[in-house]
């Protein structure tokens, strides 16, 4: 079969909502797009543990510590589901780790912002996990089977993340004046970076159309961002916080909230490595990887020794 006819057959399957599985024929560009997207997604889950891990030992109560520990452990799990989905496309996990550690792979820019106060743990749960859920729910229907299945697992676990974050903020909102101020200050810092999590505006997102055609993506960046703003508005009222956008107001005609322009120069700056914590995150990741090296080697040596022993016993 010619590439053109294989491609037509592939697109027909996608159009009919037949999932593509690892050993099925797929266009090179589809494979490449998926490897990039899934590995970036996996890296984001792994790096995403760092800002929150920062507060595990300082959580204000045992209840909060248990919740945060479980959440961070889930994020590790999400990274692992996604690396495993990515490997079905013919890449090696070691290579993905290497790209992350060397700084050649990207991960979500949001994790390059610092967690300065306890309220930030609440804001991350509410806004960052909230935005992630908005992005991830449509991915459960992605055309690539292993990615879609990984996302179903991820989404099942995410709602607890967002709820624990919202509960943290709700508690602060009923606290002392200092706690209320801490809450507002934190939301001020996380609001805009959370909106940036949906990626560039549709007009600046040239690969979007292809991803939509391949049913990797189901909604555009701007559609998802709008949906997010619309739900956050009501939730912010329950927290008694002001979202830091003077242009935020209901637009009767559109049936959506209007919001102010996003500072994309900040976004690209952080993507390029100049965010507040880029180098710190990479350094922490490299340190953890290097310090685990002897464990990985010892485990292999131990497994090898046992294998030899079992062979000797059997003969």
């Amino acid at each position: 079969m010619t590439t053109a006819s294989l491609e037509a057959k592939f697109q027909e399957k996608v159009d009919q909502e037949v999932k593509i599985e690892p050993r099925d024929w797929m266009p090179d560009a589809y494979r490449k797009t998926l490897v990039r997207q899934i590995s970036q997604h996996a890296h984001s889950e792994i790096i995403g543990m760092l800002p929150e891990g920062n507060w595990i030992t300082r959580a204000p109560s045992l209840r909060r510590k248990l919740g945060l520990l479980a959440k961070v452990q889930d994020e590790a799990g999400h990274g692992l589901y996604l690396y495993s989905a990515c490997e079905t496309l013919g890449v090696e996990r070691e290579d993905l780790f290497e790209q992350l550690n060397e700084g050649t792979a990207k991960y979500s820019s949001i994790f390059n912002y610092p967690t300065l106060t306890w309220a930030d743990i609440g804001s991350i749960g509410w806004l960052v996990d909230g935005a992630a859920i908005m992005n991830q729910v449509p991915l459960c229907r992605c055309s690539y089977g292993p990615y879609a299945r990984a996302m179903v697992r991820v989404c099942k676990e995410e709602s607890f993340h967002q709820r624990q974050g919202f509960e943290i903020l709700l508690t602060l909102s009923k606290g002392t004046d200092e706690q209320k101020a801490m809450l507002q200050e934190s939301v001020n810092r996380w609001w805009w970076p959370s909106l940036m999590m949906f990626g560039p505006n549709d007009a600046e997102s040239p690969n979007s159309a292809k991803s939509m055609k391949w049913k990797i993506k189901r909604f555009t960046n701007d559609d998802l961002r709008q949906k997010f703003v619309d739900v956050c508005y009501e939730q912010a009222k329950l927290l008694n916080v002001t979202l830091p956008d003077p242009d935020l107001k209901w637009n009767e005609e559109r049936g959506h909230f209007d919001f102010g322009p996003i500072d994309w120069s900040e976004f690209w700056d952080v993507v390029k490595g100049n965010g507040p914590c880029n180098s710190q995150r990479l350094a922490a990741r490299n340190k953890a990887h290097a310090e685990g090296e002897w464990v990985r080697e010892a485990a292999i040596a131990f497994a090898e020794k046992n294998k030899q022993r079992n062979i000797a016993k059997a003969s």
Partner: protein
Amino acid sequence: MKSNWPLWEVFIRSRQGLNHKHVGSLHAADADMAIENARDVYTRRMEGVSIWVVESKDITASNPDKQDELFDPAEDKVYRHPTFYDLPDEIKHM
């Protein structure tokens, strides 16, 4: 030095009476570690009562490009299904 642990496929029985079902894969140095890792990665919320792991390289899979030939023998055998047989309406349960 690369110390790549081998890849394992993980199968989980979610409760008694159900089959083990493939849930994903993971890396581990040996089978015991694969079971422990599978517990942590795939059953953090009581999703399983039993785990199987098998090294990915030991799985033989059918070729998707030969799907048509492989499954063709079953395709035209409608007489293997109960609805192929005509019965009088009076018979409700058969």
